[in-house]
């Protein structure tokens, strides 16, 4: 066979005709040929094994085949369509990926481009096709609308249910069991200024049983029932997770990050995960464990998006397009968790997304807006706010106060670094030792300890969000909580109008609150380390914010008292006159919360915007920025990874960290496989292997793709074939095509070689081959893994720099990750998946 046509075709594909790479299968007409049930198979099957029996039980419809042929002829022109054989019917499952594999962004993008081209071309032919093209163009926005509605509604439901179930641990509403404590006393006029949440309709369990709310017996009874409920909720949560969707545990953000970077985890964003996560999240939050619902809400929103993607062909069939939607869904999750639409968009951009074009930015913005509006119209807290700890104060701050804010930043950074180290160490123990074998016992033990220790201290007994809202609150005359237990100056009623108060000396109530808060701080810091990563849905935002808020409040009260007693001292002179309100402890709590959250997650911009949207006070941007930045610097000094990256590394997900810089000067030839000691590369030849030989090669290796070369003697690179495509095509051919036996030749070249007339007909697989695999020469410097990230590659081949294009080796994303791990003195085998 002459090699000239081959070179020609290579030349053309290299110069940008990517659409030719999968002539039979991946152009526009292919999409939508399979009924939805088939798609469910492809999306939800968790097992990594190929389930042929379930994928080919629905034969493609005849009309679809016709359309397919037509489109092929249209796109390929004088392509190899004359050589078409029965195999070139669309094979179900071709072009999809196996579980725990990385997608090829380039392939997905070109698939979408071809599809789009097809629709645009058809739209000139008929009105129906025109309408179809319009609906196709509109479907992205419609999908965003649906995602926003669904995620907003679910978040509202979770808020209401968690609020109710949390109060359930303490008592019940006699007016209607569905009311939470706050809503039970909503109408009651028996509430007093001191006891704001006490009304006869709400009965604690002790009150209900003994008939009195006083006395030790009632207290002990309440204590016991609190622990029993907490254990019960935690038990339900962990057993439900175990029984229905093991993927629903944890926060979900590390996995979402990995999925957005192109990894496939089947079933991670499925219906059962959604249902289980929603239900168990409420249980886990209500059990009083030191965890929040914010991270899991991101997961819930992404599940919604993934499920809704099934409605639109454009997104159902294309993994890259679906990841754009998931990026937007991450924004929706934060938007409903904090009531911060813009913060959500920035969070998606800064923290989770991998590929974030401007179009996705606008769509995220729209979806976040819709979600926030939906949540607002559900009004879960009955105060027209989207979050429990919305604050509203506008007290000014003085430039000198930046010093304590920076101290809070340092505290946040130290806590963040320490937390990550401790939590990862604990998770590693769980992963490797016997502790991991008893997940249910572990959850129950931690819950028991939490409930036992938390109940006596009112600041740990209340839920995390309530604690934060109390700490953020500024003490005005209207407040009567313990935290506002200042001594009232005698002349208070005569001076001043309005409710803002001058600094006052601390009273006994405040002192009690302070030591209780100090104990709560210690407890929260310790228990959060062991809580995060248990097998229940658990978020990290609320606990770390609570730690920061307690520390900030303590510092704030300290500053306030310092200012009160030294108001004519050196620092406070000039801005702290005795009658002035110069220190706002609530602001310190807020800054502390931002600092700790920043230290743990290493967010900066999105964190400040989220906090800003929580408070609505423009004047606090500078303190928040100062604290967030300091905390990031301090934390980065101890380790550059945030908690999510640390968990990604712990699990060995193939994730290329965009924040990491790659400073080592190695060449491609140092990274590539095979190494000198390795056996030679497993390759396919273009026209000399039999079906049996190919199958034996595929069976004996575990690679997910094989380069195709001209022949073993002259290993010139022709193309690249993915393992899954190869297996599916061969299996399909054996079932449908007559005469394909083990001895049939597998032909990847355009023209089959001449062969004996009595031999079995060859199996043509040129259609599934990538004709233009990305190639570099062996001396390309590997200065950064950006080549994978920016181009969205899965692997590339190394060829010799001459014209001959002799195949030398191959580098996959996994090889790069292993190489980076080796440079950083880590175990390269910790990267698990390919």
């Amino acid at each position: 066979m002459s090699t000239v046509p081959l070179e020609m075709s290579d030349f053309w594909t290299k110069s940008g005709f990517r659409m030719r790479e999968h002539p039979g299968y991946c152009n526009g007409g292919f999409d939508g040929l399979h009924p939805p049930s088939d798609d469910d198979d492809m999306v939800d099957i968790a097992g990594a094994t190929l389930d042929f029996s379930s994928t080919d039980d629905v034969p493609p419809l005849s009309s679809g085949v016709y359309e397919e042929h037509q489109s092929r002829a249209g796109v390929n022109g004088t392509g190899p369509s004359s050589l078409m054989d029965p195999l070139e019917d669309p094979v179900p499952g071709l072009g999809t990926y196996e579980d725990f594999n990385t997608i090829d962004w380039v392939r997905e993008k070109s698939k979408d481009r071809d599809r789009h081209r097809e629709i645009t071309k058809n739209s000139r032919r008929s009105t129906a096709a025109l309408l179809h093209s319009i609906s196709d163009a509109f479907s992205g926005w419609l999908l965003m609308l649906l995602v926003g509605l669904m995620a907003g509604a679910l978040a509202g439901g979770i808020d209401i249910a968690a609020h109710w179930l949390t109060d359930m641990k303490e008592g019940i509403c006699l007016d209607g069991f569905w009311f939470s404590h706050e809503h039970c006393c909503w109408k009651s006029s028996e509430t007093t200024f001191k006891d704001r949440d006490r009304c006869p309709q709400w009965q604690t369990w002790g009150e209900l049983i003994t008939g009195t709310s006083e006395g030790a017996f009632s207290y002990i009874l309440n204590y016991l029932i609190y622990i029993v409920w907490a254990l019960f909720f935690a038990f339900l949560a962990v057993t439900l997770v175990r029984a229905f969707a093991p993927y629903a545990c944890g926060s979900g953000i590390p996995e979402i990050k990995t999925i957005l970077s192109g990894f496939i985890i089947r079933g991670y964003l499925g219906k059962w995960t959604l249902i289980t996560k929603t239900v168990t999240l409420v249980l886990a939050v209500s059990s009083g464990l030191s965890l929040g619902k914010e991270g899991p809400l991101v997961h819930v929103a992404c599940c919604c998006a993934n499920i809704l993607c099934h409605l639109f062909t454009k997104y159902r069939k294309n993994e890259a397009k679906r990841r754009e939607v998931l990026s937007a869904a991450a924004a929706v999750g934060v938007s409903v968790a904090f009531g911060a639409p813009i913060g959500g968009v920035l969070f998606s951009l800064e923290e989770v997304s991998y590929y974030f074009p401007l179009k996705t930015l606008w769509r995220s913005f729209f979806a976040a807006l819709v979600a926030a509006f939906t949540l607002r119209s559900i009004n879960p807290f009955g105060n027209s706010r989207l979050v429990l700890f919305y604050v509203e104060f506008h007290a000014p701050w003085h430039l000198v106060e930046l010093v304590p804010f920076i101290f809070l930043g340092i505290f946040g950074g130290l806590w963040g670094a320490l937390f990550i180290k401790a939590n990862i160490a604990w998770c590693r123990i769980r992963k490797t030792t016997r502790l991991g074998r008893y997940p249910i016992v572990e959850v129950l033990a931690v819950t028991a300890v939490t409930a036992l220790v938390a109940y006596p201290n009112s600041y740990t007994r209340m839920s995390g969000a309530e604690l934060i809202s109390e700490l953020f609150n500024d003490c005005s005359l209207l407040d009567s909580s313990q935290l506002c237990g200042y001594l009232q100056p005698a002349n208070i009623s005569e001076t001043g109008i309005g409710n803002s108060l001058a600094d006052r000396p601390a009273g006994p109530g405040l002192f009690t609150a302070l030591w209780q808060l100090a104990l709560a701080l210690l407890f929260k810091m310790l228990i959060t380390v062991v809580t995060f990563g248990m097998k229940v849905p658990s978020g990290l935002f609320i606990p770390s914010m609570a730690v920061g808020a307690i520390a900030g409040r303590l510092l704030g009260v300290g500053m306030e008292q310092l200012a009160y007693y030294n108001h004519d001292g050196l620092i406070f002179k000039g801005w702290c006159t005795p009658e002035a309100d110069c220190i706002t402890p609530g602001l310190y709590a807020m800054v502390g919360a931002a600092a700790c959250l920043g230290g743990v997650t290493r967010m900066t911009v999105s964190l400040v915007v989220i906090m800003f949207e929580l408070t609505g006070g423009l004047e606090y941007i500078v303190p928040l920025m100062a604290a967030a930045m300091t905390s990031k610097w301090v934390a980065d000094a101890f380790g550059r990874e945030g908690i999510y990256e640390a968990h990604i590394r712990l699990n060995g997900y193939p994730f290329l960290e965009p924040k990491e810089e790659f400073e080592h000067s190695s060449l491609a030839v140092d990274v590539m496989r095979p190494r000198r000691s390795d056996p030679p590369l497993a390759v396919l030849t273009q026209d000399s292997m039999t079906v049996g030989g190919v199958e034996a090669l595929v069976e004996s290796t575990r690679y997910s793709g094989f380069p195709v070369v001209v022949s073993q003697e002259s290993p010139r690179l022709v193309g690249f074939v993915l393992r899954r495509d190869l297996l599916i095509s061969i299996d399909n051919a054996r079932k449908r095509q007559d005469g394909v036996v083990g001895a049939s030749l597998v032909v990847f070249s355009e023209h089959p070689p001449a062969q004996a007339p009595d031999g079995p007909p060859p199996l043509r697989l040129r259609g599934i081959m990538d004709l233009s695999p990305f190639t570099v020469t062996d001396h390309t410097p590997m200065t950064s893994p950006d080549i994978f990230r920016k181009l969205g590659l899965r692997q590339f081949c190394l060829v010799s720099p001459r014209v001959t294009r002799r195949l030398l080796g191959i580098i996959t994303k996994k090889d790069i990750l292993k190489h980076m791990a080796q440079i950083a003195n880590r175990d390269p085998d910790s990267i698990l998946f390919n």
Partner: protein
Amino acid sequence: MFNGSSTLQSLVKLLPFTFVTLLTNPLTRYYINSEDIRCKCICPPYREVEGQIYKQNVSLKDCNCLHVVDPMPVDGRDVEAYCLRCECKYEERSSGTIKFTIIMYLSILGLLLLYMVYLTLLEPILKRRLFGHSQLIQNYDDVGDQQPFANAHNVLSRSHSRPNMLNKVEHAQQRWRRQVQEQRKSVFDRHVVLS
């Protein structure tokens, strides 16, 4: 227009959900009953008068101290000074949404629990009891051989030779269970993901 029809089909499936969402949320706000609005005034201590909380069922425009604070604790001269310190907030909620959400949540939780109990406790018993006489059925039905632990339901449905629909459901359920088992293995036993 082949793609369109499948989209339409799935849209129809989704319709009830969208409908419920749209119906329960914004619309209920127009039919808010009087139970669901309040005007809450918090009045701090003033001279010898203790701090008080007042709640009244009034509309937004009447939500101020003069309308809501009913037995006015101070006499005419001080009313203005007293009221200046009070903070009045108009709030509304939807008790219907709360009730609906909680009942919905409890029923989903209950269903899940029942299903879990069924899968873990009842099914093995049923299976054991049925395997005795299911040998006959399995002999001519070689599908059962591929899955030695096929659930009892499967055997039951085959013995009744129901139409295709039920088999499809069975098939989907089997697949789902295998999938969950796989997930459980990787999360709980091997600690490969999500640890």
